[in-house]
């Protein structure tokens, strides 16, 4: 089985080759005429030719045939990669992907336990998964170019996208439908991993947060007592809000704020200190915290593996 991107690439290669031939043909005819029929090169008046019906019928009919062939090839590709492509059998698992201004929420309804994560989509490699695409606010579009085409996330509608990665690795993408001020910083990482790694990842994500100790425990208090908890959830605590990304396993992710910053201690602290500096317009406000509280919060969030 090949990825959607490979199937589309195969079709594009055929179409591109045909288009290239037409392009070269027309440009060559233009250049040749421009060179051959300059007034300075040819003497006497031009013959007054008004047309040639046979030629005109030919250049109407031939493109029709070419397009008919392209159409048939296209239908084949659509069958291969379509959201409901039965040729590849049923998908191994469903994942719900929800677009938010300006981050991605992923839920795994087929897995045991509640698994909610953000901006980093883990899938098993060499296995077809069915993405159920929904939108929380405005229209977004899910696109990871190395894996295939894009499908919109539209309020009031559930779309499907068959996702298949043929080898383990991290695939980058980002939102493709203009969705407001931070559209540019709504990035996706798809992490495809072997079946074993993926199962271990699922098990880790299904767990509630590990009870913090020391400074981290102080950080949890800061988290729960400030506005953080009115948007974010950390499973295992009283924070259950769903407006912002679920943070239960924040520290296991590679980036912060949908790909704006790497997920390390320094970046995390800078982000918490002033989110608007790094993602102006983001719905995360600047929360005024003392240095001690901020350090504790960073330590707590860093402990959520």
């Amino acid at each position, binding site marked *: 089985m090949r990825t*959607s991107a490979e199937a*589309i690439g195969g*079709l*594009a290669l055929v*179409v*591109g080759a045909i288009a290239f031939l*037409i*392009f070269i043909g*027309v*440009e060559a*005819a*233009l250049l040749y*005429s*421009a060179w051959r*029929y*300059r*007034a300075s090169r*040819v003497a006497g*008046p*031009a013959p*007054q*030719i*008004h*047309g*040639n019906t046979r*030629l*005109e019928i030919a*250049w109407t009919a031939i*493109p029709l045939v070419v*397009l008919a062939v*392209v*159409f048939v090839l*296209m239908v084949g590709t*659509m069958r291969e990669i*379509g*959201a409901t492509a039965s040729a590849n059998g049923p998908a191994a698992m469903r994942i719900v992907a929800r677009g938010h201004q300006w981050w991605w929420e992923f839920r795994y309804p087929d897995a045991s336990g509640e698994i909610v994560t953000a901006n980093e989509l883990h899938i098993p490699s060499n296995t077809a998964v069915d993405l159920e*695409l929904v939108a929380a*606010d405005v*229209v977004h579009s899910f*696109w990871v*170019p190395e894996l*295939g*085409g*894009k499908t*919109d996330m*539209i309020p*009031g509608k559930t*779309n499907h996208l068959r996702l298949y990665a043929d080898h383990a690795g991290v695939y*980058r*993408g*980002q939102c*493709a*439908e*203009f*969705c407001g*001020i931070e*559209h*540019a910083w709504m990035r996706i990482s798809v992490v495809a991993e072997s079946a074993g790694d993926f199962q271990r990842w699922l098990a880790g994500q299904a767990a509630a947060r590990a009870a913090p100790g020391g400074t981290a425990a102080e950080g949890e208090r800061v988290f729960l007592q400030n506005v953080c908890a009115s948007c974010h959830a950390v499973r295992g605590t009283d924070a259950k809000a769903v407006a912002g990304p679920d943070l239960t396993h924040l520290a296991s992710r590679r980036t912060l704020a949908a*790909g704006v910053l790497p997920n390390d201690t320094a970046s995390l602290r800078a982000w918490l200190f002033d989110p608007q500096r790094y993602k102006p*317009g983001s719905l995360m406000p600047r929360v005024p915290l003392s240095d001690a509280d901020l350090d504790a919060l960073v330590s707590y969030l860093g402990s959520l593996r």
Partner: protein
Amino acid sequence: MSATTASTTLWVRRPAGLPAAGWLRTVDHKEIGVLYMGMGLFFLVFGSVEAAIIRLQLAVPENRLVDPQLYDQLFTIHGVTMIFLVAIPILVGFMNYLIPLMIGARDVAFPRLNALSFWLSLLGGLLVYFSFVAGGGPDAGWFAYPPLSDRTYSTGTGLDYYVLGLAVNGAGTIVGAINIAVTVLLLRCPGLSISRLPLFVWMSLVTSLLILVAYPALSAALVMLFADRRLGAHFFDATAGGDPIIWQHVFWFFGHPEVYIVILPAFGMVSEVIPVFSRKPIFGYRFIAGSSVAIGFLSVSVWAHHMFAVGLPDAENLFFSAASMLIAVPTGIKVLAWTATMVGGRLRFTTAMLFAVGFIATFVMGGLTGVSLAIVPIDWYVTDSYYVVAHMHYVLFGGVVFGIFAGLYYWFPKMTGRLLSERLGKWHFWLVFVGFHLTFLPQHWLGIAGMPRRVFTYAADTGWGPLNLLSTLGAVVMGAGILAFVCNLVVSLRAGELAGDDPWDAWTLEWSTSSPPIPENFLQVPVATSKRPLWDRKHPDRAHEA
């Protein structure tokens, strides 16, 4: 012919000393044409500056030249400006100016309505721009998809001025289209049957009828959006039983024909320029006219190719895919016919001809990438990426704008009595041609590499920096070309070489009157003896070849 030219001096365009207020109350189709073109050039300045800022912002990754809020307003107003306030007014201006002259009429059918349509169009444009004075421009893209364009997510008044401005502007365009269509159908001079109409007039007629089909859909969409935003309606609000996809259908029912509305008159201008500078009649007149009608019909059944990623049922996708592919056939007919017109000709590479040939060379590319966007799976990959930005500019700039420049160099002497400078014209052409391809060719690869459209910046690790920088450098070259054009306009208006009535040895009726034409266009109603009435007069011995 000699009678017309000899008595030209008896007429003066307007009594000397009449105040500029004359422009405010004019109902003369030529003056209204000039007003329309002036409006287009005025807004072109804004649209170009917006484009320049966009390209500067994207020149390097993670640039902070403009903030995202301003950037969103810039690309939105750039699209709105170039489509509604530049392309349409300039093309309608050409139609207004030229059609009565080309069909041997004294004016359009409804001169006062004509004035109304211009002033409505201008008022609409000013209303859209007033948003910036009122607190901020529209910021949801030129196609303003809800819910992003709803009041919940776009809280300012920018979108409201977008709605009001485009509704008023659209009303002007609709009124103007009725006028043009009636003029072409009823005011042709004796002998000018439909099958002898100059191709520019043919395509303007199709454009006018398309406007009558497409623009009311835009008006309806705008009314619904306004009701949602200000009157508590829920047409597009999924949380209250509405559906945001309805907007997409209605908008693109207007939006895709709009592409043909602006490209057909450009096709028409090129179809006039190429034969004259090839010294041959157009190759396959009937096929070109017929293919324009075919484009008109097909163009109202292709809109959902903008929506292949929306998740419509396969059957719908296949229908719109097939219809969109089909439209390549009548378009291809034209490209081949223009090329065949050049074959065997005696080509004179004036600036008008350079732009016409540059148009074909560039538009072919836009046409072919257009077919790729009609192919559903390929569209899934490239839609909403910079590939689409590249494609659309190949069609709208390489097509419409190059066509307009060809037409301007060709008809400027008729409108002003003076030729545009050929020397500055060559600078204009080559800088714009090279700059255009440098700007937009790389964007195809950026799209394929994964760069979405409408991003105010991109991360350095994407690797999109070098091609973006190249694109921005291309825009600088193109900007230099546009400056050459502006210089040319200013210099030639004051001191251009006098043109005479018929500087290009052309064949259509507008060249039989003075330059600029007398207020009533012709001293005597002309008679069209064939598709090329002036050919007949100039070559009475070769009339059978007309």
